[in-house]
């Protein structure tokens, strides 16, 4: 079951999203910095990296939906809850600190980065508490 069909599809979807993210980010930065695009094209280029990350979230969501192994599905859900808890907690506390002028402004896309860090932390906790993580183990 370690390379079951849902796991393979997840890896393809996640890998595709990350490839799209890197490609669109570098393309957008280069084209916009060199004033090679204008108008609506800038908006489209600005949206693409974020949408690629949304694709990674979709890949994880579909892994939960398609996962046939109930134990592994529970582990993945625990990981996503950990990621969500960490991201919401840090971003909420940081937002208030920022509002009171105590810390510097941080771009909102870092919430996704923190979420993935929390997701990884959830995997480590799963491995410690349940002897396995939800990534196909």
């Amino acid at each position, binding site marked *: *079951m*370690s390379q079951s069909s849902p796991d393979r599809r997840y890896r393809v979807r996640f890998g595709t999203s990350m490839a799209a993210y890197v490609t669109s980010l570098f393309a957008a930065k280069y084209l916009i910095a060199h004033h090679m695009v204008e108008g609506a094209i800038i908006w489209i280029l600005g949206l693409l990296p974020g949408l690629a990350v949304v694709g990674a979230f979709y890949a994880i969501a579909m892994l939960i939906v398609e996962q*046939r*192994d*109930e*134990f*592994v599905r*529970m582990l993945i859900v625990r990981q996503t809850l950990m990621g969500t808890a960490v991201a919401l907690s840090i971003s909420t506390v940081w937002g208030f600190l920022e509002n009171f002028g105590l810390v510097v402004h941080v771009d909102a896309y870092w919430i996704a980065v923190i979420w993935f860090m929390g997701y990884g932390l959830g995997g480590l906790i799963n491995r410690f*508490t*349940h*002897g*396995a993580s939800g990534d196909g*183990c």
Partner: protein
Amino acid sequence: MKNHLKDLRAQRNWSQLELAQKLEVSRQSVNAIETGKYDPSLPLAFRIADLFGLTIEEIFVRD
């Protein structure tokens, strides 16, 4: 919840992987159930019981 899954598996000389393949779950699932780290759903508990020809109550024991 305690269970006799490890003993039942040992009586048949099945590895965790062999039992997992018969139940169509991961080896990690079998290990988690055997060690009491995970309680299976009712459908999976019925599949386990059917595989060993026993009732759920004969395999799983209340704490």
